[in-house]
């Protein structure tokens, strides 16, 4: 059903989404925990910054990422000076773009799950001599597990579907950075409808399955 280059794109998409999801889960759950359970100055600003990629056009998110990580970017410049390497137009760039765009889904879902943990259980843990970190690891996160898994699956699905920011940051290089959404764009653009049909069908099936899994864990998270 899928030809060689389509299979490459599918594999690349899965690889990019998996790598992005690892970072999304680690950073997203940590951020969600602090947003849910601590009060600190600038909390709302942090929340908005993390959520912005959810509502900004992916091209705008991609633009910011170029400004930050491009060869002349605020951070990318130093990386290039030290190593002669730039993330631009590599599959790592696709991971970065997918990470940033999928992160808000993880944070929103995990934060809701963490906030729904019974406050009395947390207090009980404190009175039993457990530190805040110990309580987070042994009481809060295990009880928020379902929401965290749902958030991880949603983030994976979103990372799989990333297009705009990926195009700006990683380009659409056949055999190198053309993830499935980009490959579909190229194929459809050149009028190869039969190839496009197959890819669209496979992609829809995968995304639908992921949503089904997320719903099973999260109960109407989205």
């Amino acid at each position: 059903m899928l030809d060689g280059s389509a299979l490459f794109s599918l594999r690349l998409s899965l690889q990019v989404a998996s790598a992005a999801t690892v970072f999304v889960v680690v950073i997203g759950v940590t951020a969600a925990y602090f947003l849910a359970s601590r009060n600190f100055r600038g909390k709302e600003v942090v929340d908005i910054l993390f959520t912005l990629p959810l509502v900004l056009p992916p091209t705008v998110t991609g633009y910011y990422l170029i400004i930050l990580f491009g060869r002349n970017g605020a951070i990318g410049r130093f990386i290039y000076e030290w190593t002669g390497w730039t993330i631009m137009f590599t599959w790592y760039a696709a991971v970065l773009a997918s990470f940033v765009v999928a992160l808000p889904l993880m944070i929103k879902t995990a934060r809701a799950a963490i906030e729904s943990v019974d406050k009395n259980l947390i207090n009980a843990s404190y009175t039993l001599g457990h530190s805040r970190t110990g309580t987070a690891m042994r009481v809060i996160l295990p009880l928020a597990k379902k929401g965290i898994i749902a958030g991880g699956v949603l983030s994976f699905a979103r990372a799989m579907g990333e297009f705009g920011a990926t195009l700006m940051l990683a380009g659409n290089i056949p055999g190198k950075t053309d993830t499935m959404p980009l490959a579909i764009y190229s194929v459809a653009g050149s009028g190869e409808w039969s190839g496009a049909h197959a890819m669209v069908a496979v992609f829809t099936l995968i995304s639908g399955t992921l949503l089904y899994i997320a719903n099973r864990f999260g109960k109407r998270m989205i």
Partner: protein
Amino acid sequence: MGLSVSLKKKVNGFFLEVEWEIGDELAVLFGHSGAGKSMTLQAISGLMEPDEGTIRINNTVYFDSAAKINVPAQLRSCGYVFQDLALFPHMTVKDNIRYGASGLEKSEREEALIKMMSAFRLNGLENRLPSEISGGQKQRVALARALIRRPGLLLLDEPFSALDNQVRAEMRKILRDIRREFTIPVILVTHDLFEANAMADRIIIYSGGRIVQTGVPSEIFHSPASPDVEALINPSGFTRPSGVALSFQPSPASS
């Protein structure tokens, strides 16, 4: 030895101002809901910080606003049984109890665990989840978890309120056994007059964030200090959710 509490706390227009002291005895905090009883327990355990005051147990200062001392809840040696028991739903009975013993050495912990399991008649339930055991069994797990590290103080926030009468009677017996084993101050918050009378060495009556009377049960029942107290302890005006017959009371109030 014992516990001394003096605290002031203002929350949303409610003002709690109480001062009392007890030895290694069982004190019942008695009064209507919203009188500040649970708040007092939260302050003692360190879950809520008073605006002013001192909290001392056996000469260890837990809180002293003037000296800016506020020992975090984790470091206070308080066993606390919450009204809803707050058993961890994802942990088995054994893990719940073991969770209370994290400060102990591993071998000591396992030994204490075995001892608590049998003292609270929980053998055979080790690997059940809280959702799989009865109300009375949950109570015993909560008590075992609170007591396993041998705290210097036991706080009970209406722990028996959800139980039927037969199980309540059994829990009162267990509490008496606990008191033979642990000579520590025990504070029991209750709405139940019969329970207060049956269990208390001393009753501290709360009303609107203040203490209106303190004394041994017979003193309180024979000579209520004010019409307020009398209304609280006068069974004829008292709705009794537990349905315990009033004739069970060893020393009826004014009749």
